[in-house]
């Protein structure tokens, strides 16, 4: 690996990846709790269409990508009201049509200077200072909103019914959540590509699950594990000369595997206290 680690592009990639990992940690948890992984995928595909549009009509992808992902969110919400199709089907239709349209548009533009591989798998090593600015300013804003709205986000996830009855308007919270995912996907697409965004969001969250006892702990640990994955993945890709995006995801997956197989101790301890209570209860039950 040698000097590569001190090169500017490597440092930039590191900072970009770390910033993104911190932001997606809590959002990844919400995606897992809400079982919305496929929703993330759909938005990632829509992001590719955004990039293609940006090339075709020559606007900044900073505008085109969020525009298309947010528009996809709205399309999804409208389509959801069509009771004849399940939301799963609607997501699949939207995901693959936008991907297909994106790829067709890319080829229409003559494919000039378009690196389809980069679109699909990202190119975190090509991150420039502007991208860093977008990640830290945009990502920072997203994270601030997530923290500000956290109680509502968790409440709307756990029980929209309770949240609604107690005056938290969970519908609005769900909208907000979808928009935040759309925005974070727009930021992330350049770094890890269309195909790996969802993995970047949910793997650290899944890895954190067994080690925590509250939603807040899980969100924080997901960010930390995401950062570890980014660092390990980037150094690994430099060491073994492998593509950066997939290396980051792979590092995260290995981390998940390690954390799932090894430490049964913590959760075992929790289990035993819970069972103890049960036992107590059963003992007193008159019936």
């Amino acid at each position, binding site marked *: 690996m040698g000097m590569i680690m001190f090169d500017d592009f490597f440092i930039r990639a590191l900072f970009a990846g770390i910033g993104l990992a911190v932001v997606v940690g809590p959002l990844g948890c919400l995606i*897992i*709790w809400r*079982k919305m992984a496929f929703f993330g995928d759909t938005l990632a595909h829509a992001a590719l269409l955004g990039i293609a549009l940006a090339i075709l009509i020559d606007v900044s992808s900073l505008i085109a990508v969020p525009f298309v992902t947010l528009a996809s969110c709205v399309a999804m919400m409208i389509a959801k009201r069509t009771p004849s199709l399940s939301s799963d089907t609607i997501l699949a239709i939207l995901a693959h049509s936008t991907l297909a349209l994106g790829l067709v548009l890319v080829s229409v533009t003559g494919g000039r200077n378009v690196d389809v591989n980069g679109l699909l798998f990202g190119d975190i090593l090509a991150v420039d200072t502007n991208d860093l600015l977008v990640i830290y300013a945009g990502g920072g804003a997203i994270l601030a909103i997530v923290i500000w709205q956290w*109680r509502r986000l*968790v*409440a709307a*996830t*756990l*029980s929209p*019914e*309770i*949240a*609604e*009855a*107690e*005056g*938290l308007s969970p519908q609005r919270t769900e909208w907000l959540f979808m928009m935040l995912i759309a925005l974070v996907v727009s930021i992330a697409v350049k770094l890890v590509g269309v195909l790996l965004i969802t993995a970047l969001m949910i793997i650290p969250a*899944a890895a954190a*699950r067994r080690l*925590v*006892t*509250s*939603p807040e*702990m*899980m969100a924080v640990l997901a960010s930390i594990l995401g950062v570890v994955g980014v660092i390990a993945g980037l150094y690994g890709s430099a060491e073994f000369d492998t593509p950066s995006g997939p290396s980051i995801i792979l590092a995260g997956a290995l981390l998940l595997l390690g954390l799932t197989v090894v430490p049964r101790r913590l959760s075992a301890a*929790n*289990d035993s*206290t*819970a*069972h103890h*209570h*049960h036992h*107590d*209860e059963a003992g*007193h*039950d*008159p*019936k």
Partner: protein
Amino acid sequence: MARDNIDLINLENAGVRRDNRWLVRGIDLRIRKGEIVTIIGPNGAGKSTTAKLAVGTIRADEGCVQRQAGLRVGYVPQKLHIDPALPMRVDRLLDLTAKVSLDQKKQALDAVGAPHLATAFVQDLSGGEFQRILLARAMVRRPNLLVLDEPVQGVDFASEAMLYNLIRQIRDSTGCGVLMISHDLHIVMADTDTVLCLNGHICCSGSPDSVVSNPEYLRLFGAHDTAALAVYRHDHDHIQNPDGTVQHADGSISESCHPDKHEHNRDGHDHV
């Protein structure tokens, strides 16, 4: 108990229309401080719609809805599935919709007899324990109105009696109003002040005793069914403790309330 004439909720001739169909219409519902109101009716009668109308999550398309300014609602859902991927302990669940102090949490858990469950994971609780925790969660931020959607569904008889007891105790100590939905027509909490029998409109309403003998009620649910109808009654000579033991009027505590010893049968409904 603290009961005065402050209206928490007042619906007058309220109706909700969806897709050119009235889900409910002509609803008069008034809940005062410290009052327990139970809505009963068959499936699709508009019980939940009426509750939502009262709480304010849906708007009335006709009629008049008034709510006390700053009304705070505590809600106990019919059922709640919490995904195992969501790490959630009881003490965090109490914080769900608003930040509450440790002291408030402790009081709420004490009130439902579950202080030992504070750090248990909600996914590990038994059905009866979970119901109690949901009740604690609803009361923790000291609501003016407690809304319970079929709170005793799928709960065994002992837990059911205990839940009713808890609800009454909460009402007595906090003076909140209680709105309960029940699809189980056979058992209506005895402390209910008003029963509202719904079938898209109000069939009849009044005290539990007056409702069960109302011809509209009989027409809706059939006379043959009323033989089995029982209004759940407490003879207040004992209190069922949350752990299942029974504290009698003389202060003694026993495992159950044996009819031979205390002349009260736990299964002793009044058959009307």
